């Protein structure tokens, strides 16, 4: 009854595996929720607007599309030039 044993083994692994996986993710959820609570209590200040956002608003009143296009071209050109440099 080789295959019966095989099935039993596989079932055991399945049971253990699903069990531990659920336990692990469950513990992780608990840890995440606890951390979130602790952080909310001791560091409640929301994220200060990062520099990136400030830059965004600063740049909004200029023709962003055109600049981005120019950048893309410049970068492309830069790479193309660089390629020539070695062989």
């Amino acid at each position, binding site marked *: 009854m080789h*295959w019966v044993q*095989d*099935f039993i*083994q*596989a*079932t055991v*692994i*399945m049971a*253990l*595996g*699903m069990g*531990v*996986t*659920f*336990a*692990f*993710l*469950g*513990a*992780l*959820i608990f*840890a*995440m*929720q606890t*951390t*979130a609570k602790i*952080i*909310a209590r001791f*560091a409640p200040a*929301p*994220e200060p607007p990062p520099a990136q956002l400030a830059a965004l608003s600063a740049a909004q009143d200029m023709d962003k599309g055109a600049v981005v296009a120019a950048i893309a071209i410049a970068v492309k050109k830069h790479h193309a030039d660089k390629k020539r440099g070695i062989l």
Partner: protein
Amino acid sequence: MIIGGLGLHTGISENKLFASQGPAGVETLTQTAPASVQSAIPSPALPAGTAAPAPKKGHSGEISFFNGLVSIAKNTGIYAFMTGSGWKSLLMIIVGCILIYLGVARNFEPLLLVPIAFGTILVNVAGAGMGSEPHGLLWLVFKYGIENELLPLLVFIGIGAMSDFGPMLANPRVAILGAAAQFGVFGTLLGVMALNLLPGFDFSLKEACAIAIIGGADGPTSIYVSSLFAPHLMGSIAVAAYSYMAMVPLIQPPIMRLLTTDKERLIRMSQVREVHRLEKLMFPLLVLGLCVFILPSALPLMGCFAFGNFVKESGCLERLSKTMQNELMNLATIFLGLGVGMQMSADKFLNLQTLGIIALGLLAFSLGTAGGVMCAKIINKLTPNNLVNPLIGSAGVSAFPMAARVSNKLGLQYDPHNFLLMHALGANVAGQVGSVVAAGVILAIFGY
């Protein structure tokens, strides 16, 4: 071996170069060619002292025009493909071309499939010796990058540095879907055992586990586990894993439709809350800590993942984070692909087992999808006030970010204003963690 390698380099001493040898020398060449490919199979249990003599390369006969022409002709691939089982190598080269086609023309995870395909093609040209000890490029990549599990771990550092756990942290509850989808792994184990009932299939338990990990929908994890449990199946397993990942938009929707009711598909989930920077910073440490305390077997993969993710979220290691996401990731991906392709030799791929793995891979993805969806439905039974749209359950198989997009797309089909993407992404990254955990449990059970 290394000293043998040196011997190969300077070859026969130069003053013997004109010793008469005749066409016999040419013949040995063609005979050693297929052997050199087979020597790529890691020989499991050679006692240290009895290292096989290094295959002699380079002959030293007098070169007449006829001699030379014969040597070149017998060295051609055409000749090799027409003699012995050379046609199998030719078939494998065609398999490589198909992979290239799938990768580039059908966009099947080309980042991995194209390098794998080139590895496949190059390793199956016996005369080139690229898969043979001690100096073949693919052999070097396999020996120093795959066999010691180095490259999958480096890729994990890169994946960690590219992952954003924000969507999961915003709604930790959905993480459980990433556990449920691991039914794709463990259910497939039973599938392998069922397949063993058919004549011609006789996968061992370790082989079964390596195959089942396809259900984790995570390429490097599959490669990692199969390099430990079944290196000879690594090629087929990796190809199946990456191919089905690319086919997620075809595989998942029917299953998702089958298992959900119209009402369930219309469930709207609460707006995602904002996540504090510290939560993101702490997450890799939390998951690392859990691994340390509960599941050390998963630590190589999870530790690398957490390392990359922490460096990314730290905010003060921009240099390292950028390098991990780009140079490290890309270099590791190129060589990982080549090294896996090196395992795609005819004798390892052209057999019934590969067909079995292809079938089981499909089963694995299906079971994973079903597991995630069903788990969401069970959650809804338990907490009827805080419903989860079961369509995001399928994203628990990971296959980031495609599975999440599939969830979102299906959701929009039934309600054009129901954006499930962020929730699905939460399940998606949880599925990433889930498959590493699943791999870790299997390793732990077998005592690794």
